[in-house]
């Protein structure tokens, strides 16, 4: 398997994660009063925390694969996103194993900060002229796109979907009786 295989695999996971996040978000907002919405949320609840941990861990391992194996050099914004995602991966795994209650107040703020950085980084890739100086830095500039799939999936976009999923999955409403 080559790098392109992993790029496509992670990109598809990212899109699927975003789709799932949107579905859960719709179920708990627009369809919160419907039986289907309630059933979906109740059925998904056992998966919310382990899936958050799996998503954060996959994001962490994926970023390490691309930087250490494929040699895509992380820029300043990449490191800032790593500063949010890596602790989340470790914490979510521990919280899942220990079944720690009410972890949303810990993980959601971190994921929210990470998602803002990811969003800015993704926009910088889309609109480099508005946000940079017209010169490529001798080091890796943050508007540099290592790869792009489906026209919009890049490394910051994948991180963004991960952060958003963590936020939504860890802010589910209380269980119904």
């Amino acid at each position, binding site marked *: 398997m080559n790098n392109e295989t992993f790029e496509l695999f992670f990109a598809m996971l990212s899109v699927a994660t975003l789709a799932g996040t949107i579905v859960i978000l719709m179920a708990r907002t627009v369809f919160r009063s419907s039986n289907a919405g309630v059933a979906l949320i109740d059925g998904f609840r056992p*998966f919310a925390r382990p899936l958050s941990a799996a998503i954060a861990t996959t994001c962490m391992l994926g970023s390490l694969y691309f930087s250490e194996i494929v040699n895509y050099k992380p820029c300043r914004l990449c490191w800032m996103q790593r500063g949010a995602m890596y602790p989340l991966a470790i914490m979510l795994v521990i919280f899942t194993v220990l079944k720690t209650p009410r972890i949303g107040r810990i993980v959601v703020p971190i994921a929210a900060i990470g998602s803002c950085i990811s969003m800015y980084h993704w926009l910088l890739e889309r609109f480099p002229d508005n946000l940079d100086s017209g010169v490529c830095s001798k080091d890796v500039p943050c508007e540099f796109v290592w790869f792009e799939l489906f026209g919009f999936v890049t490394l910051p976009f994948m991180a963004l979907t991960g952060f958003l999923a963590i936020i939504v999955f860890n802010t589910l409403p209380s269980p119904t009786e």
Partner: protein
Amino acid sequence: MANNSRGRNTQATWIIGAVIGVVIAVAAIVAISSTGGKETTSDLQQFGTIEVVGDPLPQFTSEEGDTAVGMMAPVVNGTGFSGNAISTSHGTPMLIVFLAHWCPHCQREVPLLVEWEKSGAVPAGIDVIAIATGTDPANPNYPPSDWLAREQFPALWPVMTDSKSFEAAEAYGLQGYPYFVLVGADGKVAKRMSGEIPMDQLTQEIQAVLG
């Protein structure tokens, strides 16, 4: 009724679990089957051996108050993609253009340079040498030889390949790409510029050097 509700929730849980598993499996299958080995190979040399004669220039910070102006430019001896010898030896006014294959600004600047040359707007009496630097096989748009060939980079402008440690770029004080160094016939630095430069501005700068 409570048992029915719990039963439905268990059913929903299994369904959701199955959906997640199927999505991951499908993503893996599609990714593996859709991509094959696509190696980019080139028989041309993307890195060269560089010899620097003279003192390196200070690092470029800005055109305003550039301390390198008036200094003797180092002479860089190297090779091109085909191993042909190329040198920035003194004697004629020279424009040295440093380009990185992965840099979006270089990718936009090269077509302007090509059009500038084709239109005949390049002032007479100046030699243009490009140096392919910052080369990295892990970065997009590699190899630079293919990129410049696609862009129909002028054959009259030699392209030197920098070393893996970017010695030519270091010798001229490069801090960003694209990077331009104007050297007078006396071998002294006349101007250094960085970023996307409009061709009319480049022409004016060269004409100022040529006098």
